[in-house]
């Protein structure tokens, strides 16, 4: 009796309403994200023994993941490519965001942002294949250059290597970098730019002393948004990366499938996640410092 009335009173509180609202997505996330993640963590401490799993906890998988040259090389290559993709994406996105923010009539800005997202209505796989068409041996680039007589033989350094991976991924992630940078640029009070000019700065110095520092939160956010998913991508390197363009994610896939060594795959996955987490925390810390100084 007492418990029932207590429960009905609790049902009317704000706390219960909040809980009721958040429960479905929370349970979904628990089942689809937390549970598999826990399973991966668990697997990483076990050992694959042909068709059976040895469930004795061991650090052996991690020892292998961190000491064997092949995994080190792949991990470093993944980090390097992700860093290059992030740098390329941010560098290419900044001028676009800057142009829309500073040179487009305010009434048309939303339209421009909308137009920027249009290429991304096409499936990601489709876009990778289109890049193959563009960069291939008999592709658009080689065809045009040979047709113009600028080259004798088709260029081979543009497809099936790391350059192709970087190019494809930078294009894929561009809108995700343009948006946060655009938002940061929009937030800059234009009178600050006039003040800088009034105090003696030419356009270039003004950019580096006022515009860029104030846009940094957007640049850092864009970097994190591009960097994290790039490390885990295994479709792009598989399709356009060639033998030397394979990354740690391809190795993780290999361990889970062909090599039938889920525990080692799990240890590699967890290791990669930890490294990405550490790098992201550094970025977030930098971002907070910038935001704090802005007040």
């Amino acid at each position, binding site marked *: 009796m007492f418990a029932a009335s207590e429960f009905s009173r609790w049902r009317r509180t704000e706390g219960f309403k909040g809980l009721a609202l958040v429960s479905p997505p929370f349970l979904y996330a628990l089942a689809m994200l937390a549970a598999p993640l826990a399973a991966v963590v668990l697997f990483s401490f076990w050992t694959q023994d042909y068709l059976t799993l040895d469930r004795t906890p061991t650090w052996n998988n991690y020892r292998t993941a961190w000491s064997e040259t092949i995994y080190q090389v792949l991990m470093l290559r993944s980090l390097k490519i992700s860093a290059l993709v992030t740098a390329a994406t941010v560098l290419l996105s900044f001028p676009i965001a800057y142009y829309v923010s500073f040179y487009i009539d305010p009434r048309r800005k939303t339209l421009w942002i909308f137009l920027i997202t249009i290429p991304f209505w096409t499936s990601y796989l489709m876009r990778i294949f289109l890049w193959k068409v563009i960069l291939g041996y008999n592709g658009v680039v080689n065809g045009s250059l040979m047709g113009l007589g600028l080259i004798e033989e088709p260029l081979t350094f543009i497809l099936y290597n790391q350059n192709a991976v970087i190019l494809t991924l930078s294009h894929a992630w561009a809108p995700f970098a343009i948006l946060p940078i655009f938002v940061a640029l929009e937030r800059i009070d234009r*009178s600050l730019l*006039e*003040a*800088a*000019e*009034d105090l003696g700065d*030419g356009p270039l110095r003004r950019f580096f002393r006022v515009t860029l520092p104030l846009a940094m939160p957007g640049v850092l956010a864009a970097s994190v948004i591009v960097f994290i998913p790039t490390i885990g991508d295994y479709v792009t390197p598989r399709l356009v990366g060639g033998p030397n363009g394979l990354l740690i994610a391809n190795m993780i896939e290999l361990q889970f499938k062909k090599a039938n060594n889920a525990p080692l795959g799990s240890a590699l996955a967890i290791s990669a996640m930890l490294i990405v987490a550490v790098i992201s925390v550094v970025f977030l810390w930098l971002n907070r410092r910038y935001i704090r100084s*802005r007040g």
Partner: protein
Amino acid sequence: MKNAMIRLVGIGKHFGEIVALDGVSAEIRESEFFSLLGPSGCGKTTLLRMIAGFDEPSTGEIYIDGKSMDGVPPNRRPTNMVFQNYAIFPHLNVADNVAYGLRAQRQAKDEIRGQVSETLEMVGMAGFENRQSHALSGGQRQRVALARALILKPKVLLLDEPLSALDRQLREQMQTELRHLQRAVGITFVFVTHDQEEALTMSDRIAVLFDGKVAQLDSPIELYRRPANKRVGEFIGVMNFLRANLISEFPGGYEVDVEGLGRVAVSMRQAPGGASASRLLAGIRPEMLTLVFDDADSSENYAKGEVVDTQYLGDMTYYEIALDGAGKTVTLSMRNTAGRPILAPGTGAKVRWTPESVLLLN
């Protein structure tokens, strides 16, 4: 007479169909506290931004210190600006904000530090060097903005309504401080405001702008005593307007018949626009009208009427008085000296005036 620091020659500016400025010419003198006064939309901020170089005039030319500013960008002009919202750089602390312009000139670090603390002291912000800009109050922001501009020792300091965001008390304090500062540094100040009281108390000279044109350019005293037309008279202070008819012209002035006051002889000096218009107005300030409490007062110029409304303000009392024979009421102000009675609405009133305080306007 001091030299002209800024010469504005026939400045016009239009944005499409809208005319923001229409043939403005003026000379702003060296070391002068000059105000651009007018209602919002009169073009005063546009004019200031043109002097700073943020906008280009559509027609006319601006000279600063004898040099044409045609095509000279803001960073190459001998002017600095205090923005309306102060435009303090949020990512820099107070010292870095103030040093911003010196850094652009690549001066030695110690030299910069010395000048920064000197300038901060001048604006009453000594010891605030390491304060983050978001931790500053409105008044402090303004002082930092001032220091940041003054440290570059510009020939002209431009101020775009810098006091409008402050509360009343701080605003009055800053008015005095700005005036003192201007005298101390001797730099030409061009001050934009819509507040006539602010302009009167601070300026050496004021240009009143209406609809993109200079309505009058004068000292505060002249502007208040002899406004060029009805609109200026209304905009600056309070002024009563009574209908007037020209009776005759005599050497040195006009004789007019003013409703409620009767016949008045107005000297040429008091009729800035002459008396050619068919509809003349006599303007008189509330403090130039006096209530006479002594019935035995035998002064010549007085009018009779009735108190319609009484507004008691402590040091002053404002009366609305319906003068006999006048179409509308006049406002009259009296200082509340010891023993002076306050008249209640409905009481008869005897109002004295002098011919010297009557202005003839078109």
